């Protein structure tokens, strides 16, 4: 694979990754997001409903936590996870964990890492891990790594150092095992940058990992509570500065639109798309605008609209907190609210998704109130399409040097 940068603006990288896939003929834009999946399928969506979504990413994220327990069947299948899940047309990246599920601590040793599936814990040494990857045959996979330091509140320097040491050891072991397997050589290993909140360790992790023949880098442990966000963003800039320009930088656990932009400004290329899934699960629809260059009249109208939406959000924040909607952001609307009962508008006017072209807010409200499965299907279709549209607008903004406008627009809508 080959990453070529079209331009770099204020730390933001715009470009393409070429020669991807088993036949080496696929291309991926950056910055971009990966399609979030659970057990190899987009949440709620079959192949049919998935492919009505416009702007689908070129690459999907699989999670080892959901697939490890099926590795025997996959090994017998022989033809790889892409064909098994019915997504041979997508590039595949296999991460260790599911970004949505919490990470139980205390299970990483010097020799093994555990992932948590629905069937329980799967413990993996480097050789078991590589055997599983051999059965999966993804295009890229996150290397076995010690990310537990990130689950804890405060990292001691000792623990941060250990996470780096262990991860490098796992990486070297896995690279060695990869060399011994023709099948595994067709996948690219993504090296994982660890080190907790300790700058020295982060830099060491970056420099050392960059020395290895990895296909790209995963920036682990930069998600977390807003209190320590500024420190983490500073760490992030320092880390990406140490990484080679011509390899992709992925980040895990960051998916909110405002946080995505912050990370792009600090040299990150690829993101997970679990945020639209979380929005779906709470019965909400993404409505935030990413139209950074409307005509001036529209801007005024939209500003007023957003102003009102934000005012309403502030007023009802208290109510939302007590009704357990604390995690809801101001990027979305809650379709369960009574005010949508007779609202015959689409979720977002002008949205080209299947849901907005065919259904109304009133219908979605009804489906949610009656606990119908179709609510999740339609909301997922809309939320994915809206989110992928956002990433498209990021690339367009970078192309035309308008990222500052987009950033300001998003900032205004963030709660």
């Amino acid at each position: 694979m080959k990453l070529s940068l079209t331009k770099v603006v204020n730390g933001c990288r715009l470009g393409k990754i070429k020669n991807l896939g088993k036949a080496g003929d696929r291309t991926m834009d950056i910055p971009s997001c990966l399609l979030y999946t659970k057990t190899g399928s987009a949440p709620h969506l079959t192949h049919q409903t998935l492919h009505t979504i416009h702007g689908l990413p070129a690459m999907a994220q699989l999670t080892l936590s959901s697939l490890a327990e099926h590795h025997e069947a996959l090994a017998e299948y022989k033809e790889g996870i892409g064909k098994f899940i019915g997504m041979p047309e997508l590039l595949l990246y296999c991460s260790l964990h599911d970004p949505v599920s919490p990470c139980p601590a205390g299970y990483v040793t010097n020799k093994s890492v555990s992932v948590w599936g629905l069937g329980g814990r799967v413990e993996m040494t480097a050789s078991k891990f590589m055997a599983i990857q051999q059965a999966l045959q993804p295009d890229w996979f996150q290397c076995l790594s010690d990310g537990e330091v990130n689950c804890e509140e405060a990292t001691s320097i000792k623990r941060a150092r250990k996470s780096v040491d262990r991860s490098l050891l796992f990486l070297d072991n896995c690279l060695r095992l990869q060399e011994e397997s023709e099948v595994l050589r067709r996948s690219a290993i993504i090296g994982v940058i660890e080190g907790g909140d300790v700058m020295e360790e982060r830099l060491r992790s970056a420099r050392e990992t960059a020395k290895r023949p990895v296909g790209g880098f995963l920036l682990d442990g930069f998600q977390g509570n807003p209190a320590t966000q500024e420190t983490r963003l500073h760490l992030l800039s320092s880390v990406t500065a140490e990484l080679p320009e011509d390899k992709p930088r992925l980040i895990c656990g960051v998916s909110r639109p405002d946080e995505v932009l912050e990370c792009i400004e600090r040299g990150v290329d690829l993101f997970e798309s679990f945020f639209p899934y979380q929005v779906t699960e709470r019965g909400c629809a993404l409505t935030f605008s990413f139209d950074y260059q409307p005509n001036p009249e529209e801007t005024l109208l939209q500003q007023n609209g957003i102003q009102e939406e934000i005012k309403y959000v502030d007023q009802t924040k208290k109510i939302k907190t007590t009704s357990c909607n604390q995690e809801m952001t101001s990027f979305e609307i809650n379709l369960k609210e009574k005010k949508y009962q007779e609202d015959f508008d689409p979720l977002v006017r002008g949205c080209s998704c299947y849901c907005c072209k065919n259904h109304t807010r009133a219908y979605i409200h009804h489906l949610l109130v009656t606990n119908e499965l179709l609510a999740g299907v339609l909301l997922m279709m809309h939320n994915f399409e809206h989110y992928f549209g956002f990433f498209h607008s990021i690339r367009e903004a970078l192309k035309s040097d308008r990222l500052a406008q987009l950033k300001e627009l998003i900032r205004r809508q963030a709660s």
Partner: protein
Amino acid sequence: SWVRLCEECSRSRARAGELRLPPGPGATPVFMPVGTQATMKGITAEQLDALGCRICLGNTYHLGLRPGPELIQKAHGLHGFMNWPHNLLTDSGGFQMVSLVSLSEVTEEGVRFRSPYDGDETLLSPEKSVEIQNALGSDIIMQLDDVVSSTVTGPRVEEAMYRSIRWLDRCIAAHQRPDKQNLFAIIQGGLDADLRTTCLEEMTKRDVPGFAIGGLSGGESKGQFWRMVALSTSRLPKDKPRYLMGVGYATDLVVCVALGCDMFDCVFPTRTARFGSALVPTGNLQLKKKQYEKDFRPIDNDCACPTCQKHSRAFLHALLHSDNTAALHHLTVHNIAYQLQLMSAVRASIVEKRFPDFVRDFMGTMYGDPTLCPTWATEALASVGITLS
């Protein structure tokens, strides 16, 4: 007349025809999937259309409570609300009397329900039921009938039968849109041949566009079941469609087509899908079971549905053991496809004058040996001139 009979099987009572309804035509015999609350559970209108479905069901009792007829009317009827471009049939709410019996009380006035959602009491009268269905705008609407479980015996059955006739007349009188919506009568009478015959005689005197055979498909024995179906079809006019309510198992569908029924509905195929069961010509596959873990074949090699085109039993097995609802949707799509493909094949065999052979093939696949076919089915088929061996 808006049902056109294309072909009649010269042996049995099977017929092929076409419903001509405002949204568009629909072939019969037909299986109608059930979309109780203005949605087919988990699948989009586009998916349902792509499977070839041209008529499905909504339920007056549920929709009458949530979201209510006024809202649906504002949304341009049930078609507009759920964005379904083809035909819709609504049940009157009568069946809920049986299924939600602890919450209901029947009088001559109507059925008094206590809402399970807010405890409020509602009276569903024949007039109210038709009023709601008029607002819903479904193409075929059902009379409110006094439904008694088929396992009930004694005077209650007779009372319910006569009341259903009176309620039919009240529904006809209350119906505001006979030019756009077709009101069907529902034959009651339980498992009593005399009562059912009386009901048939009376209801067929009324000028309704179609007849449903009700009060069956409960806990009765299959032997009683088919005899009541056969009795009903023998006394229903040939030039109007016969809708057998609540019938959905493949064998039952095939036998009842032979007995002269045209339309069917049942929650079974879609409900069993959500429990991980896939319908196949030999019965069903419980895909959650370990034996499918490494079975890389599709559910059915001959099935043209999207699930079978793209996915293996092994993948569905894995997905069913996850918390991704997509697993349920894959099976719902397949099971609906199975039912619709079955009816399509039945219809083709009638039109091509080889329905008895089709029945023999079907039973052979399903049961292996003709002698292993359930006795009731063998008897029912024999009664209309189809022998299995």
